[in-house]
């Protein structure tokens, strides 16, 4: 039960941070990606500000045997990069630039995004449903 409550608190703080940072506005995201247009630096401060507490958190995690509410800390990620990491990130970036929403703000936008946000979220979930067969096909192509 504690883990569930902590999850809700973490999600809530994430959502509050998205609202406060102005990541509700898709033109801010596109403005940051638009280095040839009217460049908007806000997102760099959001990303930089978010990395700071996590730099500390990883240092604490490295010195602890286990998380406070049980379980284990995530193992070191697989150092191999792989074609799926690159291809997936390129596809994600293309969609992110196109609309200005990434998954966190897309979910949170249920509370502020109107119809556009909901349509985006439904399409995103549909893409997630379609992803495993696409991954299998990409893997076959890569192995061939």
């Amino acid at each position: 039960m504690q883990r569930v409550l902590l999850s809700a608190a973490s999600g809530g703080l994430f959502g509050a941070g998205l609202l406060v940072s102005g990541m509700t506005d898709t033109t801010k995201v596109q403005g940051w990606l638009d280095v040839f247009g009217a460049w908007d630096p806000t997102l760099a401060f959001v990303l930089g500000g978010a990395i700071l507490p996590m730099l500390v958190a990883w240092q604490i995690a490295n010195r602890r045997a286990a998380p406070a509410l049980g379980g284990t800390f995530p193992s070191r990620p697989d150092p191999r990069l792989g074609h799926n990491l690159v291809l997936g990130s390129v596809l994600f970036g293309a969609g992110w630039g196109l609309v200005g929403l990434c998954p966190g703000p897309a979910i949170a936008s249920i509370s502020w995004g109107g119809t556009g946000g909901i349509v985006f979220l439904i399409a995103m979930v549909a893409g997630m449903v379609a992803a495993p067969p696409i991954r299998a096909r990409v893997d076959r192509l890569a192995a061939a």
Partner: protein
Amino acid sequence: MSFIQPDWIWGLVGGLMIGSAAALFLLFNGRIMGASGIIGGLVDRSGLHDWAERGAFLAGLVVVPALMLPLYSVEVSTNITSNLAVVIAGGLLVGIGTRLANGCTSGHGVCGISRFSLRGIVATVFYLLAGGLSVVLFRHLLGVI
């Protein structure tokens, strides 16, 4: 709220809140706070064993901003394009891409870079480059957005 302070200060404050949320999730639950992975594990059923934690996280992500909205004197403007074909194409690309790459801005960007993970850094470089190219192509060359 941007009429009091410039946008970047609110960006920094909001960013610190997002990073603190990820730090709580890591230090208490031992989990990476990646939005695409949390919802994606429910969609493809790979994360059903801890569905309650995932569901609670997603509920908090939606409910807390909704409760905060009345504090804002002006309506939050999303400026999402009214072109539904663009919205749907973008959503599909984000859904497929984040599942292939196993992460998005929060997982690879916030949690990966802070751990000096090569995968997180490489993913972030590629989605930023693709995002920049996407805006150049669809805004400046094609004029769709």
